[in-house]
């Protein structure tokens, strides 16, 4: 193999190595919330190239690019079914608590759930349905599923390394905010990053749970138990850039006691 890059060989070199173009948080030692979905890479990006020949959006079932010219007709279409299972579905339910059931918007399942049944079928073809919004028609086609884990150059084909064909250089991090504080403030609801607290100091009373937003500034014993989304109540982006340490530790769902001087 030609030497065209610097290649970290042993474990300590790999732990310290920061590939060209990767943000600082991609090293384990500097990682923020180092579990899925963490802030060192965006795991959702592995689904973009799960089918050979086309590229999907990392979060929506939209065909954003085509690699196989024969599939060009599917550009911009929605992936609506895989092996007969719906990926995209019409959602119905009450608009407000206790309200009447009505048709809500169409929605897609999150990729890791939607594609769980085919992740082990790497190398095989599955039947995919695409919806064209112009013609309002669904067209089915067989697409090959990519393997999740690398097999090339790996003894016995066993590896925990993501397959190189699943993501081009830079793709695993391209949907991350830089600096990381933006992602940290932007996303909540036990979602991003997974280890980031969200609903804290909660109490249950008469079947209703009340608590506070972890990003609520200056929480004290008298702060109302209301989950606030008002910007004025919350730590701002700038607060986080300058002084992220003000985020307090949460122990068993409650604010850690203030340190005693």
């Amino acid at each position, binding site marked *: 193999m030609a030497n065209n890059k610097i290649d970290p060989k042993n474990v300590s*070199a790999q732990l*310290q190595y920061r590939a060209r173009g990767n943000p600082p948080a991609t090293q384990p030692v500097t990682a923020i919330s180092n579990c899925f979905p963490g802030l060192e890479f965006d795991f959702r990006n592995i689904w973009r190239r799960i089918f050979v020949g086309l590229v999907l959006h990392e979060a929506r079932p939209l065909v954003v690019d085509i690699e196989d010219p024969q599939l060009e007709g599917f550009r911009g279409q929605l992936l609506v079914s895989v092996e007969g299972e719906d990926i995209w579905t019409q959602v119905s339910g009450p608009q407000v608590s206790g309200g009447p059931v009505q048709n809500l918007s169409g929605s897609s399942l999150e990729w890791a759930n939607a594609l769980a049944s085919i992740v082990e079928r790497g190398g095989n073809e599955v039947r995919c349905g695409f919806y064209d919004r112009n013609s309002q028609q669904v067209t089915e086609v067989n697409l090959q599923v990519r393997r999740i884990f690398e097999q090339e150059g790996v003894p016995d084909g066993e590896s925990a390394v993501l397959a190189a064909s699943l993501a081009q250089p830079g793709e695993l991090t391209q949907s991350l905010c830089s600096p990381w504080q933006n992602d940290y403030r932007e996303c909540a609801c036990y979602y991003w990053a997974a280890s980031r607290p969200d609903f804290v100091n909660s109490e249950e009373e008469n079947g209703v749970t009340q608590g506070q937003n972890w990003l609520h500034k200056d929480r004290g014993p008298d702060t109302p138990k209301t989950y606030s989304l008002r910007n004025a109540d919350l730590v701002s982006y700038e607060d986080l850039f300058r002084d992220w340490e003000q985020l307090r530790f949460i122990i068993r769902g409650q604010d850690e006691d203030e340190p005693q001087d």
Partner: protein
Amino acid sequence: MSSQLRLPLGHLFPTAQGPHLLLSDGTRIYGLDDDAAAQLQEAWDSRDQQQAQELLRRFGLDAPAAYIDDQAPESMPVRALSLAVAQKCNLGCVYCYAQEGSFGGKAQNMPLETALASVDRLFEEAGPGDRVQLAFLGGEPLVNRPVLRQAADYAHRQARRKGIKLGLSLTTNGTLLTSQDGDFLERHGFSVTVSLDGLGESHDQSRPFKDGRGSFERILKRVRPLLAKQRRMQVSARVTVTPGRLDLPSTLEGLIEMGFHSVGFSPMLSSPTGRAEMRADDLKIMLDQMIACGRQFEERLRDGARYPFSNLTTALKEIHRGTHRPYPCGAGGGYFGVSAQGDLFACHRFVDDPSGAMGSLEEGLDRGRQAQWLQERHVHFQQPCSGCWARYLCGGGCHHEVIHRGRPACDYIRGWLHYCLQAYVRLLKDCPKFFAP
């Protein structure tokens, strides 16, 4: 020589897979593209530290902070003790650091109370889940078999009672081993090291009985049944290499064929009388032979065979992990030798040697001396170690040998590590499973 000192930052080495770099800080190994290699080589050849650091920064290879700083730990908990249960021996090895077992003093056995008190001391700072190591050395420890067995049994009971993991080891000349010893050592899962300096004649010249008779045949008779019993127990051979008796590849092959769990070589660098010490020319021959052994290992590994050449297997695993340490071993840190009289020393070799005295079981570990030892022995304060690329893999060399003879083997150590680094790159490609956790 290719393993020469150029810059303390690290070592550039060629391989069939292209140029590679070991960065000493963190023992990190990188394959280089040709352009990066050429630029680094220039900085290394001109010994331009500043330029080299600038290049490392540019290539993204700089570390945010030094992995090892100058600060020595002030104290460490005791995690390993070796008991000189018998400061006497039935062999008269020409180079023995223990001067035929007695360490230059009166031949004596360790009393049972001292052995049991040592075990208590070993467990004193350990809690449930911790791991401690109890070693029996001498002299020849089997001279004092009853104390060895009672101390091991006692340690076993204490470990079980306290939920502490215990490793037991024995270093023996093999001449006194009995079938009952084999059962006992197997039952406790001992790591047994037998000192053998070759096969037949070459062993007998180094390690005769006190009356001059050869000991090899006798040892073989006693060790073969032990080798056959290995299940939990592991029996390894340790070969001390002395000048003129240098046929390492065939020795390695022969001992592995006999069924030893592993076989390792060490050069005789410091003997109390100066006899049998290896000089620069001897070490050059030894290096060539060690590399020949390494080649033998590489071939066997590619064939899928187990070939337990411990110098190389240990080095490869440490290199893969990126082991970096400011000391060569745990001596005076978490490991101490206990003399027959119950005094504590930096390790088994320093028994009854004031330069390694560390207190006593009765009066306690001398924490002040320990702190001073850890500070002084830190590789950053050893010369010429602080300027050597191999400092965190070597750790500065055996304290006992360095204090008594200095550092005559640096070229040998660097030459060996240079080979190990190249072998690592080869085997990582050819036999990746060897490095699996």
